[in-house]
Structure formats: C-alpha cells, structure tokens
C-alpha cells in the first residue's frame, strides 16, 4: 500500500486525472439531470486530456516552440499536445450537439431530467 501511494505521488498528474475520470463517469451514471450528465462527460474527457498532456511533459522542459536563442533547451514531447488539440475539438462538438438535444427534449417534455422524460414517454 505504501509503495502504491509513493508511486501515485510520483505520478500525481495521472493520479488526479484518473480520479477526475472516475468522478466524471460517476456523475454521468448517477445524475439524472441531462446537464449534469453533460458536465460529467466533459470532466471525463478533460481528465483524459490531462493524462495525455502530462505524459508528454518533461519536468523543467521547454515549451515546444523552437527558440533559436536557446539551443540547449530540452523540449517536451509535442505529439500528445497535438493530439489533444483534436480531442478538445471533439469534446466541443459533442457538447454542442448534446446541448441541442437538451433544448429539443425540453421543448417536447418540459423538463431536463432523464428519469422524468422516460416516465413521460412511457405514458
């Protein structure tokens, strides 16, 4: 257990990312409000982004923009950052679409609660 905690402390960004991921998933699964589900999804995705970006980072490294004044700089790995740019766009798209669906559902059912909607639909 101690070793586990020690290692987790070393990998603290991953640790935090996974905790955020679990909280996000928990929000999605247990909250019946559509907004809360959406926020949970966003938390989950940003947790994954955090994990990627932490994986690319080097402690004390340099920003990955070529600096000709400082040829000795240790640049961080730019690949995960580039990937996450795409990831962020994807999460924006999903959020936008989900918001549109929420509006549509509110127009039809007058509520933003998934459970109420299911009840109203069965009726």
């Amino acid at each position: 257990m101690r070793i586990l905690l020690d290692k987790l402390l070393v990998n603290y960004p991953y640790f935090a990312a996974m905790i955020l991921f679990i909280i996000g998933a928990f929000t999605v699964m247990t909250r019946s409000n559509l907004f809360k589900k959406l926020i949970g999804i966003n938390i989950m995705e940003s947790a994954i982004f955090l994990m990627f970006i932490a994986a690319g980072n080097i402690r004390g490294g340099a920003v990955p923009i070529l600096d000709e004044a400082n040829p000795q700089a240790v640049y961080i790995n730019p690949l995960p950052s580039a990937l996450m740019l795409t990831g962020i766009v994807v999460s924006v798209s999903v959020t936008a679409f989900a918001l549109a669906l929420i509006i549509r559902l509110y127009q039809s059912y007058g509520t933003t609660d998934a459970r109420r909607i299911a009840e109203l639909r069965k009726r």
Partner: protein
Amino acid sequence: MGFTAVDYGTMVMLLILIAASLAMYFIKDLLHAVIVYGAYSLIMALVWLQMNTPDIAITEAAAGIAMTVLMMVVISRTSRKED
C-alpha cells in the same frame, strides 16, 4: 523525489480541480454548476500552462469559455433547477 515549486503549484491546482468536479456533482442550481465548470476549465488551462503546453492552454481556455457560454444559453432557454 525532489518536487519543485512548479510541482507543488500543479498539485494544488489539481486538488482544486477535484474539488470543483465534486462541487459540480453536488450543486443543485445548474447555472452555478455551469459557472463552476467555467472555472474548472480555466484552471485546467492553467495546469496545462504549467505543463509547458501553452497552445493547448489557450485552446482549452477558448473552448471552455465557448462551452460555458453555450451551456448558459441553453440554461436560459430551459429550466435552471435540477429536479
């Protein structure tokens, strides 16, 4: 394990992130939850700035604001309370 000041700063911000995410779980007022979400994404952007990726930080800040704005628009058009 020699943590530097940057590490400690990042840790504190990560703790704030976790607190914010828990807050979003518990807050009943959706508008407040969305405002907390805006703060969350801003802090996330700061964390990434700490991690030497200003590109992503800028993008996340912009995208976070955009999403917050959109969510607020939608909340203004639907109900604000969670029931």
